[in-house]
């Protein structure tokens, strides 16, 4: 007591300059660094934020992650990281971790919590059938967990409706690839950015969202960079040519590019006819298009459109990369098929520097696409493919009719079925739909109307607050397994520290539920650790497009990540297969890629006098998704503490709004009050932009719950809003 007071007095008088807290230690190979980051040992892993998949070393002292550094030997990032990666160790020990299961808000033992989940879901199934319970997962788990979860949900629990938040970001790319090439799977790789003559980033703001891809677009051998985006993004600032396409104008732009390429002889249709399917339908469709019509639809001049087309047409190697600007559309799948069509017609598939390449969102969205059991069965097996069904049933030693006949409801259809009362039990794993799902009011209504809502997460979130049962999970840095990045590279993630409190790995939770459900012995016999799942997944994926059979955890370490397909054998390089379709044979029955003709549809919730502005939503470099982690990391919060709305100077002037003013934003679905205006000419007059990361000032109170009819991906990028000055100071 006395000593404490004396110390406080000494502090206030400043006898001490605090130097003892700010010393440096020198570690071999690392150099001097703050003693607060002194590391006992390093654990090699892969970053848990975006899908770039940077190699990261986690520095551990006394079971705490105290530092990170980029893995200098990892082929993806060669030692560099973005600000989220550089502060990722703070996420593990951040406030707000879930430490103990809760049942109806009260702390509970694991035994009771698992019992409540299993008995609750069982009871609903008994009363209302297996269609009454659904599962929403994520892109954040390790592949081993996705594989386990898929078997548990589909075979063990026998549920029909299982999807992931990947439907909110990547479903259109998946569906587009399946239509064009027969199966999912990005054909290219990151090295293509450096090898291409021309790179087109289509609705992809990599400088903010995939920062470690940006260096590949700079430098002395940089490709000619074209960006297509309604906003003049950080990435557009790096471009040689920025195409300020009108929102939803990219289909017109693509049609126009195809018209120019064919008219000007860049594409020889007669030569290509035998190697593709669907050419005649496409040509017939394009007969209805002129450069003028396309330019008008795209909101650019015919000269600009021709310039883009000629750049692509003249390129020896062109990489067409896209992300959410394309996927987040009611026509996302169709736009992907059109991009694939452009790539096929220009010969930009399966060659170095030349591919249609979807940049994924989450760290392991690819893992659930491959090994999960949602849009397809594990190993990209389609539900309606008899041969695939027979093969999978044989591999698992089960009767074929135990495999689901179809995929079941996709994410938005699960929510709609909750609203209509058909689904009464929901298990949400590592995702925060209250913030991330479009039209928040409907979503909240749905979650509140459930008989049983189980949420499994590492942190308290607005979604766990609504849960009847909360299961505390281990997070990145506490779990073992593998992630697959955008370029199909399988990398290791490792537990560096134990989970806090009673939190358990998702893998362990799945096995515990399987045990209680009574299906563990059948489905997971002898499984104790993620490696057991990986070994089975290798066998199950053998011979499939996403072939892991030659990949071992040791090989991943030796190669710094292995790209699938990787069958066993000397002919496959240690790092796996860099590109798909190098022989131009794709996974469709004919072996030929399918071309698609696409007609643009008008925006449903288009601006009109009472809602005159078009809202676009997106991200900022400092935050990840719903800020479950980054919102708890002081330096990232300091850089980007709250949501804002970007508005063009002309609109701001009309509304008497200046930068920094509080404004209210309303759509027909909801409103966001007191959000800071940022007046900037990076958005077009008539359009505004709000980042979606925040629970407070949540952009998804405004967005329209309209979905791609094929992929079921939300149309986050276009809806009508009204902006007014907030009243009061």
């Amino acid at each position, binding site marked *: 007591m006395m000593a404490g007071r004396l110390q406080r007095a000494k502090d206030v008088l*400043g006898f001490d300059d605090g130097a003892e*807290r700010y010393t440096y230690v020198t570690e071999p190979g690392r150099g001097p660094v703050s003693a*607060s980051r002194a590391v006992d040992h390093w654990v090699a892993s892969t970053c848990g934020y975006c899908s770039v998949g940077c190699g990261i070393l986690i520095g551990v002292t006394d079971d705490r992650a105290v530092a990170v550094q980029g893995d200098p030997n990892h082929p993806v990032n060669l030692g560099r990281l973005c600000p989220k990666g550089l502060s990722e160790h703070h996420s593990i020990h951040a406030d707000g971790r879930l430490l103990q299961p809760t049942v109806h808000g009260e702390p509970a033992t694991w035994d009771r919590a698992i019992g409540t989940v299993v008995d609750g879901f069982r009871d609903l199934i008994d009363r209302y059938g297996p269609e009454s319970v659904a599962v929403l997962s994520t892109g954040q788990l390790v592949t081993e967990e996705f594989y386990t979860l898929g078997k548990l949900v589909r075979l063990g629990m026998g549920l029909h409706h299982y999807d992931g938040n990947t439907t909110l970001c990547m479903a259109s790319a998946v569906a587009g690839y399946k239509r064009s090439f027969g199966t999912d799977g990005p054909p290219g790789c990151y090295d293509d950015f450096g090898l291409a003559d021309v790179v087109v980033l289509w609705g992809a703001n990599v400088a903010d969202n995939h920062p470690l891809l940006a260096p590949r677009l700079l430098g002395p051998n940089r490709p000619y960079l074209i960006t297509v985006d309604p906003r003049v993004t950080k990435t557009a600032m790096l471009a040689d040519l920025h195409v300020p396409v009108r929102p939803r104008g990219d289909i017109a732009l693509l049609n126009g590019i195809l018209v120019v390429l064919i008219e000007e002889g860049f594409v020889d249709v007669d030569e290509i006819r035998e190697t593709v399917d669907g050419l005649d339908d496409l040509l017939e469709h394009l007969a209805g298009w002129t450069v003028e019509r396309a330019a008008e639809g795209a909101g650019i001049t015919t000269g600009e459109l021709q310039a883009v087309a000629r750049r692509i047409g003249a390129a020896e190697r062109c990489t067409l990369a896209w992300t959410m600007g394309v996927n987040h559309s009611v026509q996302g799948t169709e736009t992907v098929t059109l991009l694939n069509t452009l790539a096929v017609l220009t010969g930009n598939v399966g060659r170095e520097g030349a591919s249609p390449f979807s940049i994924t969102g989450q760290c392991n969205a690819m893992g659930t696409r491959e090994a999960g059991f949602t849009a397809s069965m594990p190993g990209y097996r389609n539900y309606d493919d008899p041969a695939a069904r027979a093969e999978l049933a044989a591999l698992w030693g089960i009767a074929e009719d135990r495999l689901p006949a179809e995929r079941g409801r996709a994410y938005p259809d699960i929510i709609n079925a909750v609203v209509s009362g058909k689904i009464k039990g929901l298990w949400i794993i590592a995702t925060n739909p209250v913030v991330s799902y479009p039209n928040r009011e409907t979503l909240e209504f749905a979650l509140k109307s459930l008989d049983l809502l189980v949420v499994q997460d590492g942190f308290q979130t607005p979604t766990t607050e609504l849960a009847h049962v909360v299961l505390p999970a281990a997070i990145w840095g506490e779990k073992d397994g593998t992630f697959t990045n955008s370029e199909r590279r399988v990398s290791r993630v490792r*537990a560096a520290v134990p989970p806090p409190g009673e939190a358990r790995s998702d893998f362990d939770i799945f096995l515990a539920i399987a045990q209680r459900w009574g299906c563990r012995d059948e489905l997971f016999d002898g499984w104790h650790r993620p490696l057991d799942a990986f070994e089975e997944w290798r066998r199950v994926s053998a011979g499939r497009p996403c072939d892991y059979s030659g990949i071992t955890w040791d090989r991943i370490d030796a190669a710094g990540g292995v790209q699938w397909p990787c069958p066993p054998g000397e002919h496959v390089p240690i790092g796996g297969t860099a590109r798909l379709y190098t022989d131009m044979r794709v996974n469709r029955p004919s072996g030929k890629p399918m071309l698609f003709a696409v007609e643009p549809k008008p925006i449903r919730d288009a601006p009109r006098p009472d809602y005159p502005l078009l809202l676009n939503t997106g991200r900022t470099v400092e935050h990840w998704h719903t800020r479950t982690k980054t919102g708890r990391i002081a330096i990232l919060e300091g850089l980007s503490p709250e949501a804002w709305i970007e508005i063009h100077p002309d609109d701001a002037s009309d509304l008497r709004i200046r930068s920094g003013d509080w404004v209210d934003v309303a759509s027909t679905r909801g409103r966001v009050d007191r959000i800071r205006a940022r007046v900037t000419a990076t958005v077009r007059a008539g359009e505004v932009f709000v980042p979606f990361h925040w629970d407070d000032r949540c952009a998804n109170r405004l967005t329209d719950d309209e979905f791609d009819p094929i992929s079921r991906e939300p149309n986050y990028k276009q809806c009508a809003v009204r902006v007014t000055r907030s009243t009061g100071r």
Partner: protein
Amino acid sequence: MTTVVPVDLAEVSAVPVRLGAKPSAVGAHSAVPTGISTRGPELLPLEAGEQYRFGFSMNACIGCHSCEVACAEQNGLPAGTTWRRVGEIEGGAYPETKRFHLSMSCNHCLEPACLEGCPTNAYEKLANGVVAHHAEDCIGCQYCTWNCPYSVPAFQPDRRIVTKCDLCQPRLAEGLAPACVSACPTHAITIERVDVAAWRADHAEADAPHLPSADITISTTRIELPADVPLETFSASDWNLRPEHPHWPLVWLTLVSQFAVGVSATVDGSGQRIMAAALAMAAMAGALLHLGRPAVAWKAFRNLRRSWLSREVALLSLYGGLAAAAVPLDALRWPAAAAGCAGIYASARLYIVPGRPSWNSPLTVVRFGATAVALGPIVTGHRSIAAAGTAIALIATALNWARLMRTPQQPWWGAVRLELRWFTTATSVRFALGVAGIVTLLAGAPLALSLVLVACCELIGRWLFYVAVVPLNMPGAFWRGAAGTHR
């Protein structure tokens, strides 16, 4: 279960720059910067007449803020203390809009204003050019934070001292590039050697839009500007014009010491001499509360040669001593008054710094002197002198506004806007109190009433002096200065 993966640290290059041979230049400026490259500075030792400095390519920076995080991690900085910051400037019309990022930390100037003004000589320009700050000598007076035109040094509350970038001196000593340089994914930040004499003669490359002129301190950071910077640009932080910290102990020190000197200069009788001495002592005692480390306040005398802050402390201490001695020894009243006037002059001079444009004028001397003339003579019964002092204080304030409005840059006009728009009420009340004070003084009202009116007028005026100031700074990001963010 923790899996330990052996990472051969000897293989881990601390300067991992193998992400393709990306130079810092991307656009028109393609010259590869000289200086430390991948291998560390020991391979490029300084030659005679050279120092290390940062280079920055605005072409290559993608605004990812990795440098800021790397800096905080390298140095274990607490939240809110940022030794490196990334600002944004924007210009042009859609879709030809341009937004550029400027990442800066300490510029390790050839004529570092922080060092010149530091009363304790806590700063040192090292042989390799690094402007180093010695924590043990810092008393937390924060004078350097006013002097630096880039607002680089910053008070770190948990240590109660100022801290800043030292170009990663510990890493330099081991032959490693600074953490920000090593972390930058696009190699926009470099560390280079510079010929000091040549740079002193021509340092135009240290200038950039929205950056204070490099002439002030001869910043050494070389900034590569894109060829297509629009003619008219704005800084993303421009909107966030907000008041500075009031520094209450300094409001107290300057106001009370000036009051005391006003009494000393017009003193009549031992009661007033006691009052002057008491005020002088109280002023100095209150000032200690301003320091982060009052226990080592004595170090403030160390830089009498260069620092007006050292001189202020010395002269006001001398004044306090003489004023006390003048209580029994009436003959010392004039030396005391002279020391007091010199103290006020030193006080005012320390605010005349380029980094704070609204203070950077002889009018600050006039305003401080006027406070003494306005307050002291009321106590000693010189009504017309006090009225004149009050009038001068108000007029000097208005003249300062007129001066500031002539410069179309935010640190100038912004100060006036703060005083007249943000603090409309306070400014109005201050002027009303001053006019009322003058009227009561000239009308022969009770002196106590006049003293209350004028003292309140000057108290508000002095508070406004500290809060209605816009520091020179590097351009900021959108959130700079907003709640919960760094400067």
